[in-house]
């Protein structure tokens, strides 16, 4: 279990999250959604043990992440940052191997498995500068998978991807969850959360000026956590869902007006 326990966070001297509690379960995909500035990325960073809370704690199987040796934490929790940021023109194979750093080994089997899982074999020797955006996203996810973490935390991994790449990356997250890994992703696209997450955590920030109180306003299966009522309250947008479960589309506007 990966848990936020009454967590409060500050970034750059500004309170961004106040008193959030949530427990993530392994074997499922948890989508963290909310408006801009709701504290989604900060919560994810804290759950990854990369942002120390000002009060409360983030805990892995009951152990405080802040007190855990960095390597032990890194072996358990893989974190995929939002911005694909590769400083050197390193070949795909070597980038994926970086995922073994927490283990201090070459981890050949794990690296090969990650390369195979994300179909990177043909790109193996290609330098980072010659990858497309979608390819880069696959490589960086493969880097996380190569570390064989029990938890995969990804900050908007689908934001800059085309439809096909979004679906292919989601399929990888699903495979990971089926294999028993816990997956938490910050998403902006509510339809992706609705159709593919097992559970949705909706964050919202209320307050003024320097003190924002970010809270969990809904938590549960997508159909209930992302009901039109919640979307109306949190985003201030009148919207409703069309289509069948698993293939829903979000349409803004009044249901009566659009004839549903």
């Amino acid at each position, binding site marked *: 279990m990966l848990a936020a326990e009454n967590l409060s966070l500050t970034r750059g001297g500004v309170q961004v999250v106040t008193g959030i509690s949530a427990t993530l379960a392994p074997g499922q995909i948890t989508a963290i959604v909310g408006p801009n500035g709701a504290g989604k990325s900060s919560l994810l960073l804290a759950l990854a043990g*990369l942002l120390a809370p000002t009060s409360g704690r983030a805990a892995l199987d009951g152990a405080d992440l802040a007190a855990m040796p960095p390597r032990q934490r*890194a072996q358990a929790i893989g974190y995929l*940052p939002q911005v694909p940021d590769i*400083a*050197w*023109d390193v070949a795909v194979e070597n*980038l994926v191997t970086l995922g073994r750093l927490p283990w201090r080994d070459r981890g050949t089997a794990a690296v090969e498995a990650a390369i195979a899982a994300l179909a990177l074999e043909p790109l193996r020797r290609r330098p980072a500068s010659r990858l497309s955006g979608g390819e880069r996203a696959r490589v960086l996810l493969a880097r996380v998978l190569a570390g064989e973490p029990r938890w995969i935390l990804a900050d908007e991994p689908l934001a800059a991807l085309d439809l096909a790449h979004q679906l292919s990356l989601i399929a990888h997250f699903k495979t990971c969850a089926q294999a028993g890994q816990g997956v938490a992703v910050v998403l902006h696209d509510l339809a992706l959360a609705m159709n593919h997450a097992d559970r949705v955590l909706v964050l919202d920030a209320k307050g003024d000026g320097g003190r924002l109180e970010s809270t969990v306003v809904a938590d549960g299966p997508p159909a209930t956590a992302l009901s039109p009522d919640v979307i109306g309250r949190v985003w201030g947008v009148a919207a409703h869902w069309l289509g069948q479960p698993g293939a829903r589309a979000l349409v803004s506007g009044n249901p009566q007006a659009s004839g549903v």
Partner: protein
Amino acid sequence: MNRANLVFAALLAVLLPLSLLAGRVWINPFDVAGGGVANAALILAELRLPRAVLAIVVGAGLGAAGAAMQGYLRNPLADPGLFGIAPMAALGAVASFWLGAIIPPAWAGWSLPLLALIGAGTGMAALALIAGRTSSDGASGFGGGAGGGIALFTLAGLMIASLAGALTALAITLAPNPFALSEIVMWLNGALTDRSWREAAIAAPLVAAGIAVLGLAARSLDALTLGEEAARSMGLDPGRLLGLLVVGVGLTVGAGVAVAGIIGFVGLVVPHLVRPLTDRLPSSLIGPSALAGACLVLAADSILRILPLVTELRLGIALSLIGAPFFLWLLIRMRRGSL
């Protein structure tokens, strides 16, 4: 990694004997072997060899420090001078010219490198202090706030460099006598002329220790390839990395300046020569950059020695003359996106 190490080790193995034979007086290897010319052995053992060893030591330190700094700042335009340690060491050395009158003659040979090392140490301590202050409010070393700890720390290093530079300029304008003035100015443009085994003995162990410390940072620098947050998620300890870098760069650059004065551009340029021969990860660069730095300084110093000039061109000036155009070419290439 092995390939780059081999290439530059082989190059060094070729350059070293050539450098020993080259100079105002060319030495015929058969003279020395046959014992024909007594002077030849003397020139080799007391002049050329210590100078070559010094060139290798200083160049290796600058090369390794440059590779580590570029890895740390994730920027191919970074230079070991950015930490401000070289200017601090230079300030210490300049102080020794000022104190020349009150230093006992027996100490005279040691006072300059010693004071330069004290300057470098002061610079390192200031950096450590700033690092402690800037990371104490943040969650974990890099600060986590806007801008990030690395950028803030680099600015602090630049301020130290600028302060040390201003104090050095002040020391020059207020020089006690014209002789000291010219000594200071000459010395600031690094050179390896008139050095002995004493300087080599001072610098070699410090530079070797510094390179070893930078080697300990290699894996953490690799992690930084994917950004600060990804690196920390892979278990990077930012405080430890910063400590290793300050000590490693302080030892290599500080010891280099203490015995040779300021030699620019080596740390900036060398990693670029090495990178195409490696997998481009910082850890693969440190060793080969040390070897390539040694090659570059040794070759440059040897060429200066045989140039038909009235007075020998200072090594620091010569390397800047080569380095600045190279740097411009690098910038143009980066604009084209082919770096």
